[in-house]
């Protein structure tokens, strides 16, 4: 019962460094999402994917990139990390059908110093 797995759980980056946040799901879901959650705030959508090879921007895509080469994996790439990207990042997946809820991983806590 792995569900959605995110790695790493914690990471500290220096300004200007790059990294990839990993997300994998084992439920054969078509839809996958990346959100960021800042303290006291809700989830803001960064990017989403409706299937392998198809991605699109969410509300706050600047500074991030994604790819979806397989159904299972949806990595999020940060290029040239900035302090404003300090946040908790959540990946989610969802099955086909309007009534399907999102299943979330436990997040990656990222600090940019």
């Amino acid at each position: 019962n792995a569900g959605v797995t995110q790695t790493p759980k914690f990471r500290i980056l220096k300004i200007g460094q790059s990294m990839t946040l990993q997300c994998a799901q084992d439920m054969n879901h078509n839809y996958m999402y990346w959100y960021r959650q800042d303290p006291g705030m809700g989830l803001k959508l960064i990017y989403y994917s409706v299937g392998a090879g198809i991605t699109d921007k969410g509300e706050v895509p600047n500074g991030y990139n994604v790819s979806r080469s397989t159904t299972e994996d949806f990595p999020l790439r940060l290029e040239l990390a900035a302090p404003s990207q300090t946040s908790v990042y959540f990946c989610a997946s969802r099955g086909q059908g309007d009534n399907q809820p999102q299943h979330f991983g436990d997040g990656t806590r990222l600090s940019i110093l």
Partner: protein
Amino acid sequence: EDQVTQSPEALRLQEGESSSLNCSYTVSGLRGLFWYRQDPGKGPEFLFTLYSAGEEKEKERLKATLTKKESFLHITAPKPEDSATYLCAVPGNNFNKFYFGSGTKLNVKP
């Protein structure tokens, strides 16, 4: 633009003291509303989906209701283990995107 607003931001209750959380939304057409529970250090966990005005869903001490403009999450006789942040979300036009409220942080004291 679709927007979701939750109130209050924080709520402190005594064990057994019932109350309600509010989720109001402005959407071009109601396509459903989702409630999630989020524990500290964890991702949100699905609770309910509501689709049409007048619909109600229940789970243990929680009951969610939906009108044309807002949803309520009623908590009856809460226990300390109900302490969490409760989030609501509405889907975008084609269900590809979801818009989340900022959440209500509930603290139930024994």
